[in-house]
């Protein structure tokens, strides 16, 4: 396949990945890397580079829409970015130390985990108890639209969420993904934020987290312009359409289909990594 057809095929695949990633809140990155490695036989480190670039584009592109709707919380986002960017530095450093096959195995585990969590998603509403004093001191609270009025929320378990976010950042740097699933875990499960606040704030943070490993990726030669170009443009187009649909459509059926795809890719990544084929 020559470069033109290869780029077009990548572009098409990336549109689909971006669309599904935005609709499910998992981001396009989680399927781009396995798609590049397994379908297009691209080297793992090149795949990480192309994915990371597309992750920055999607996060930034979709954030504009979310911010307008008033779901994302910029204080909570900024606070947790201290943890994710530090984690991303560690993760990016590790990409040079860990072999491609190991990255594949870890990637597969994260994919399976992402699939599992998105099947167990629920709107964790906080129980009626006194608010976390640390969250109040750090002003980690806000309001979000429910119907035609606004509901208040305060974050819980701040130290745990901060720790999980460091882990999310490490995975982001190591795997070239936004690790939306882990970020949502920190905000949805630990901080007990409303689901839409978690997903949109997570998305808001992804660009900054990914930017923290981008310098390292660039200087290590992971980012090939010819490869990153169709992937970035495709994921961007797909995710812009996907995030429009997210706010109007019921996503249950698509989510289930996507979860099956992610789980299958996860198993294949683990298999290929464990047998030394990546």
């Amino acid at each position, binding site marked *: 396949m020559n470069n033109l057809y290869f780029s077009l095929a990548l572009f098409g695949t990336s549109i689909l990945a971006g669309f599904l990633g935005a609709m499910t809140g998992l981001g396009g990155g989680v399927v781009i890397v396995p798609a590049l490695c397994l379908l297009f036989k691209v080297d793992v480190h090149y795949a990480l580079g192309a994915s990371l670039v597309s992750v920055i584009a999607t996060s930034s592109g979709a954030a504009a829409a979310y911010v307008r709707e008033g779901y994302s919380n910029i204080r909570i986002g900024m606070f947790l970015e201290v943890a994710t960017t530090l984690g991303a530095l560690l993760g990016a450093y590790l990409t040079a130390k860990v072999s491609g096959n190991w990255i594949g195995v870890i990637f597969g585990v994260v994919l399976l985990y992402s699939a599992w969590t998105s099947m167990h998603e629920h709107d964790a509403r906080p129980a009626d108890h006194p608010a976390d004093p640390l969250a109040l001191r750090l002003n980690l609270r806000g309001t979000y639209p429910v119907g035609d009025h606004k509901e208040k929320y305060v974050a819980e378990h701040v130290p745990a969420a901060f720790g999980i976010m460091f882990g999310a950042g490490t995975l982001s740097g190591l795997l070239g993904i936004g690790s939306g699933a882990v970020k949502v875990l920190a905000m949805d499960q630990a901080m007990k934020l409303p689901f839409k606040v978690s997903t949109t704030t997570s998305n808001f943070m992804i660009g900054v987290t990914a930017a923290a490993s981008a310098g390292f990726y*660039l200087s290590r030669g992971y980012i090939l312009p010819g490869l990153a170009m169709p992937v970035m443009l495709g994921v961007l187009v797909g995710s812009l359409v996907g995030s429009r649909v997210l706010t109007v459509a019921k996503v249950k059926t698509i989510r289930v289909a996507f979860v099956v795809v992610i789980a299958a890719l996860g198993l294949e990544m683990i298999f290929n990594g464990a047998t030394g084929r990546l």
Partner: protein
Amino acid sequence: MEEGSDLASELGRELGLGNDHGLEMAMGRMLQIGVTVAALVVLAGGILYLRQFGSTQPDYQHFHGAPQGLVSVHGILRGLIHLDAQSVIGFGILLLIATPICRVIFGVVGFDLLRDRFYALVSAVVLGILLFSFFLRQ
């Protein structure tokens, strides 16, 4: 010093950073503009690239690392002057990476205008980490 911060706050208010929602909207707009410009530059570079190399067969299967001129800001800018296709794409990618960094700068200025010292500081710490990571290996 005083004059400088007055100028900054005036500029900030001009950009609508005077309240929480204004800051959010300004960040959103900035991200949108950054991503759009970056994508257009990447697209332009991509068209150049495919016209030049569309019929070749690139080797992505084996890791060699990107060519020497495409692994640093300096190298990419030098290639950009000669309208080298891959450097144009690379420049678009640099603009893209700069977009979230700009968003954090907006945070530093915006929270300062909101008299929210703590979050201005938090934003400054994030900015410091980002700049450290980017210039560490250049």
